[in-house]
């Protein structure tokens, strides 16, 4: 089954052509990151307008990349939530309209489920991976149920047990900021720009890991819960920055004073802003996030007795997290799986992957499907 998939939930416009839910025939993503970088975040109305502008070029490139025509498309899928209403509206309207025009089945896709299904994608040809168990849809190389998934994106942080296709059991989630959101906010605070995740990761890599980090940031362990909290971490980072700024300011105002700043804080080796080490602080922040995510995920994997753990969402691109989790899970005989970096952040290939497993069961949506900006994973129970 060949699916034309569309993603438009936020500031990326994606079109992909996916075969049997796994094989990428085309995957085109037009990113607006540079547009929104100016504002330090996504501006909804700007994003919606960019979606309209990028739609046709993205679709056109996908068909060109796959080298196929409309006759070879069997179904159309588009994200219907969660995301920004105005952005979702564009991709969903396009998907429904083209399905109607071509007389093809249409399916609306849950963007979060799609992030998880990015783990099913591969680039090799069909012949390399013949289906072995079509009934339960397991191909060689597919993730093996039961699974534990850590969904970490710009707006979500969820630890989810997945016993089989389509069943999701929520173990824990963030009580305040999402992991990606925390990266973005702290990046902005440190003047590292948008999107924050890659920027912080890059900055953190600049420090010499052999040297002790002068910064130590708190972790919210939330005992006996798989829930997360990142707002305290964000505030602690802010306090360090403020402290450094104030120290810098008072130093300048009264440089004659020999005592240094009265705003100096414990854990801060620097005297003033000039001494604030961005790489050290970025690394300390990243480490705190990774520490909590890895510890809780490992604990859950152990308790559930799963053999494989999936990472999903933009933050899954983070190398420090991948390394740390691999190091913790491998000795337990648990495999960590994650999509290639390009498939962690928003893309349409993952929409096509998730759509396949629903379409295969005969699921379809009508042309009256509406956007669902607040859509959740369909949790059982």
């Amino acid at each position, binding site marked *: 089954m060949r699916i034309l998939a569309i993603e438009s939930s936020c500031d990326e416009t994606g079109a992909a052509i996916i075969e049997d839910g796994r094989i990428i025939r085309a995957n085109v993503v037009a990113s607006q990151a540079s547009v929104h970088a100016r504002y330090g975040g996504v501006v909804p*109305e700007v994003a919606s307008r960019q979606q*309209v502008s990028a739609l046709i070029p993205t679709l056109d490139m996908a068909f060109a990349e796959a080298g196929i025509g409309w006759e070879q498309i069997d179904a159309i899928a588009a994200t219907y939530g969660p995301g920004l209403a105005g952005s979702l509206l564009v991709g969903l309207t396009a998907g*429904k309209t083209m399905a109607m025009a071509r007389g093809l089945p249409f399916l609306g896709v849950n963007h979060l489920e799609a992030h998880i299904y990015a783990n099913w994608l591969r680039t090799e040809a069909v012949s390399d991976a013949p289906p072995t168990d079509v009934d339960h849809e397991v191909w060689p190389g597919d993730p093996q149920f039961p699974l534990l998934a850590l969904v970490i994106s710009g707006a979500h942080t969820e630890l989810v047990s997945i016993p089989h296709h389509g069943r999701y059991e929520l173990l824990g989630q963030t009580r305040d900021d999402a992991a990606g959101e925390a990266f973005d906010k702290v990046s902005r605070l440190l003047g590292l720009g948008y999107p924050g995740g890659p920027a912080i990761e890059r900055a953190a890599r600049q420090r010499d890991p052999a040297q002790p980090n002068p910064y130590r940031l708190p972790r919210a362990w939330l005992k006996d819960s798989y829930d997360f909290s990142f707002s305290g971490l964000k505030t602690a980072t802010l306090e360090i920055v403020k402290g450094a700024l104030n120290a810098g300011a008072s130093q300048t105002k009264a440089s004659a004073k020999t005592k240094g700043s009265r705003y100096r804080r414990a854990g801060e080796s620097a005297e003033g802003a000039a001494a604030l080490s961005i790489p050290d602080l970025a690394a300390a922040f990243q480490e705190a996030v990774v520490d909590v995510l890895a510890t809780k995920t490992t604990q859950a994997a152990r308790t559930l007795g799963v053999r494989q753990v999936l990472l999903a969402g933009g933050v899954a691109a983070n190398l420090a997290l991948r390394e740390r989790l691999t190091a913790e899970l491998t000795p337990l005989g648990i495999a960590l799986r994650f999509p290639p970096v390009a498939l962690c952040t928003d893309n349409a290939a993952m929409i096509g992957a998730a759509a396949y497993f629903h379409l295969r069961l005969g699921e379809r949506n009508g042309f009256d499907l509406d956007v669902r900006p607040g859509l959740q994973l369909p949790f059982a129970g």
Partner: protein
Amino acid sequence: MLLAIDTSTSLATVALVAYPPAAAADAMLSIQQRLLVEHTWEVGQRHSVELLQRIEWLLRTQNADMAQITALAVATGPGSFNGVRVAVTTAKSLGFALGVPVSAHPTLDIIAWGAYATLPAQEPVWSLLDAGRGEVYAARYISYRDANILGISAWGPTPVLMPTAEGQPGEGADAQARYQVMAPERLVEALARESTETLLCGEWRPDTRAAIEAALAVQGVQARFDATPRRAWSLAQLALARLATGQGALNTTEDLAALEPLYLRRPAITTSAKPTLDQRMQRIQQPEQQEHEEGTTHALRG
């Protein structure tokens, strides 16, 4: 068949018209006879939810399917941001999936053309739509002797619509400047420069009309109001006329890619952009900056 789509406001309108006409009937049919079916309804903000099923219904009335659509006409705004996006996205998608030409027309043109269709107007016609914040989207149209294509048995000339904010348009008048966002007082100041009574047509809320009437009274200006709902049929006529000229329709993927809604307002952007640490460390003295661009009350949801 030509499918005309307009979801610019909380009022949506769609129509199917015969296109291209059968060769033999070409000379016989007046443009009026080409309307097959038209449907106008109160859509609220459910543009994307309701549009496609209404189009399916239109097709059913003609025992037709999507494959028989040979051209599209679309209203590009101004209006509700999301509403306009739905129509434009639908037209782009249909154009891309069916490979048929798209004729795009500003919503204010469609309103003006509708007014010309019902009155043999020699007076200036101003198209208005609520723009939120007590303002209106506005464009001015002056009557042309040959502009009335109704009743012309062949395809007729391209309607020459020359909207300007004030005075006579110059030859190369900037297309964007012809469509404006105006406060009622400014609108009436412009109307005061007309030599005859003006016809104001379009859609407005009662409070918007009251504000315009108040300004008319204060400035002693005459104008008539015509709130006849706009019709996809008017849009279809403009498209038929344009398609007949063989020019101005969007035929290629590049054309479709370049099709943009006519928003008229800039996106609402409110950033209390605190200077980043980086900037402060470089001692760039930036005042707390409030960037507040135009938005619209029409953009709902989310």
